[in-house]
């Protein structure tokens, strides 16, 4: 009987410790696990743009307050579970029957109300600073249009159209050149999310949404569609290249030029312009002016195809034209049913579209 009781009290201790560990584990991973992760991760804790940075600073406040609440309530819980457990050698009498206490109830109503007030005002400030930010002169305007399952980017003032890889200039805080995006959708709901630059904003058909970024450092920032939009939602990836001002201006100049036509790929061009390709794709300066798929005028200026699902190499490009489902099952581009010779000629034409 005694040994049985000992095992039981041991069991309870183990139980208590396990529960402590479980809670501690979450707290620890929340605090340390996330920031320590891979350098490439599009982590919300490594902001590089004002909206993401304001959110990051707000999140530190929220995490601190909720962390403190967690420690206090967690300790109370553990203390009451351990301290008031039924012990061996109990006299079997019922404990004192306590029905409540108005003072205590009042205390644990008023304190949370005050905490909520602090959190609300801190949050409202950040909402206003991000959503109602004025557009400074020198703003780059971009229209982003979500498609199943790729991104179209139009720069109306610069006369540039591209897809899936957004180029923006770095923004120097002393001479800000932020990028303001107008978000539209051609079909279903999508969401524009590049965690290190800004929180997400949805692209909804029949609706115009807005967001903005002002990246502080050049480089590549990864993101992807964050609103379920259909079969290939997972491979609607998004790349934002933040260029130096000179790089960006050069990129704009290159993108504005019509396609360069090279004589030796005339056969590939003929195939492109006489099959279904031109129904969906545009190549400026040629008869191809479809708008259902990405603009291919400067295809080779992009690092990836299929909205980031594959690298933009001649081999991947050929595989993509031959059978898009092998890279992105459910994408809306049909397999083109070309023979090997035509496929090679077409690929040769596409890789000249620089």
């Amino acid at each position, binding site marked *: 009987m005694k040994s049985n009781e000992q095992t039981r009290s041991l069991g309870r201790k183990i139980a208590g410790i396990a529960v402590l560990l479980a809670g501690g584990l979450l707290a620890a991973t929340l605090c340390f696990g996330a920031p320590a992760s891979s350098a490439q991760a599009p982590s919300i804790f490594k902001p590089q743009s004002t909206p993401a940075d304001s959110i990051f600073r707000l999140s530190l406040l929220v995490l601190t307050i909720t962390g403190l609440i967690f420690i206090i309530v967690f300790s109370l*819980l553990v203390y009451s579970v351990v301290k008031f457990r039924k012990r061996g050698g109990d006299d079997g009498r019922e404990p004192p029957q306590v029905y409540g206490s108005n003072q205590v109830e009042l205390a644990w109503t008023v304190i949370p109300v005050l905490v909520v007030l602090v959190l609300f005002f801190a949050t409202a400030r950040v909402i206003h600073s991000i959503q109602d930010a004025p557009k400074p002169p020198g703003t780059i305007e971009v229209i982003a249009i979500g498609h199943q399952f790729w991104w179209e980017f139009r720069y109306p003032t610069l006369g540039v159209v591209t897809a899936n890889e957004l180029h923006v200039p770095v923004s120097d805080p002393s001479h800000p050149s932020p990028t303001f995006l107008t978000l539209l959708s051609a079909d279903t709901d999508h969401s524009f999310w590049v965690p290190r630059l800004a929180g997400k904003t949805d692209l909804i058909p029949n609706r115009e949404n807005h967001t903005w970024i002002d990246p502080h450092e050049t480089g590549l920032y990864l993101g992807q569609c964050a609103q379920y939009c259909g079969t290939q939602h997972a491979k609607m990836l998004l790349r934002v290249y933040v260029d130096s001002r000179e790089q960006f201006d050069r990129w704009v100049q290159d993108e504005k030029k019509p396609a360069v036509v090279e004589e030796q790929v005339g056969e590939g061009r003929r195939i492109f312009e006489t099959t279904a390709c031109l129904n969906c794709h545009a190549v400026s300066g040629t008869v191809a002016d479809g708008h259902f798929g990405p603009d291919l005028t400067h295809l080779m200026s992009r690092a990836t195809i299929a909205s980031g699902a594959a690298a933009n190499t001649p081999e991947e490009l050929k595989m993509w034209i031959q059978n898009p489902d092998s890279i992105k099952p459910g994408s809306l581009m049909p397999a083109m049913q070309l023979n090997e010779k035509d496929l090679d000629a077409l690929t040769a034409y596409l890789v000249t579209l620089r």
Partner: protein
Amino acid sequence: MASDTIALGIADQDARPIGEKLHDWVVTVDHKKLGILYILYSLLFLVIGGVEATIMRIQLIVPHNHFVSPQVFNRMFTMHGTTMIFFVAMPILFGFGTYLIPLMIGTRDMAFPRLNAFSFWMTAFGGLLLYFSFIGGNGLYGAGNAPDVGWFAYAPLTSRAFSPGHSTDFWTLALLISGIGSIGTAVNFITTILCMRCPGMTLGKMPLLAWLNLVMGGLVILAVSPLTAAQIMLSIDRFLGGHFFDTQAGGAAVLWMHFFWIFGHPEVYVLIIPCFAFASEIIPVFSRKPIFGYPVMVGATVAIGFISMSVWAHHMFTVGMSSYGNAFFTATTMVIAVPTGIKIFNWIGTMWGGKIQFRAPMLFCIGFLFQFLIAGLTGIMLGASPFNWQLGNSYFVVAHFHYVIVGGILFTIFGAFYYWFPKMSGRMYNEALAKWHFWLFLIGFHLTFDFMHIPGMLGMPRRIYTYEPGRGWDIWNLIVTIGVFFQIAGVLVFVVNLLWSLLKGEPAGNDPWDAWTLEWSTTSPPPDYNFATIPVVESRRPLWDIKHPEDPDWKYE
């Protein structure tokens, strides 16, 4: 009163042929049988929904995995979400309510026994209709089988252009039908609780379980009605050429979001409030003290009910509301933390100074308290709308609401199951197996859902069938999937315990927990008529008064 029940020829019932007994279950209007039917039906769907979740987690165990196609994956998350909310969580809670409310308020059945049966069968056929889509969803179009639009089915994915065939129609009709069942049940709960309490049981002397189910019933009526309306509008779009949500013809995608979430957020409270009720019955009994601050608990629940009707658009912080809209819904969302916090403090206050017995029901309730605390705090993070612009629709949100639904709701349901199993079956469950169930499930739960928060903060959106390597997501997804297998082991132990105890469990007796509410005053299982004479109560704990005539509750209330 405890010994007042008399056997009225029940003994010879067991001699009847099996067909007749099964027929009895189909035509029954007895609240106890219907309650058990609800619970068994939900457990079946719990297993199905669990299999769907396992398929998704195996697919996500490594990046670029090829376990299932994107089409199958998208069907799995749609069916998993729809099943778990509409055909597991809601019906199992309705089942406990249907079984317990008449017993706890000292009456012989629900106010409308036939409506009760009708409601159960509507829910049951709704579930069957949803799953028939695996066979019938092709229609004549050959376009997919089970629905793949996500459990909140955002427009315009549900329009004919993006969702040909009939899979979406199965989803719409299944929810429409089960929704009618839910509203029937809610009407029945409210009427029963308001009109059928035994003599002496004023509103202030009802068990908390009755109070909380009353609030839940009100929320069901307010929340499910707009969902039903939205399903009818969607059907009009799909069949009669309407354009409510058809954006190609000028419809509004955001309108659907408002309709869905004005259902969807109160729905969370429809699910969690009955679980608060279980915790409010179980924690006092195993702490050997009355609930701390009964009037405040009632007030906090009613407050949660009202506030929960004003927070829906916190699911829509990313759709481009104005800064004032975002600020308003941030405020309402954070305010709801106050009454919720009060409840947690009152449960701690109940344990404080008690003599806590760590039986399985109590273990699950303690797990609930820890996990619900964390779920509430991540809820505050998500409620701060700018933080939500980062965390919303990521795996952080998935972790958060599973913390509520598994860590909060499912844990208390398991607790309630062990607590009332002796009453429902007449036999005790196996305590050792129950503890194995608890620890396996606890470990699995924390492996899965603690670590699921992290890829969300690292930019991993939800509902993706595969992901790119090298983004820091791989290791977390691996751990998350490993946790699933511990949860499966826990549920298997639970099923074994259930079957073993039904056949071989020790007879439980009327009152195995030395508890205080009326259901423990009758036999286990209770006779068809519940009580031979309708009890008369003087306090919130009538059995305490009988057991302690020297110190009865009614002196203090």
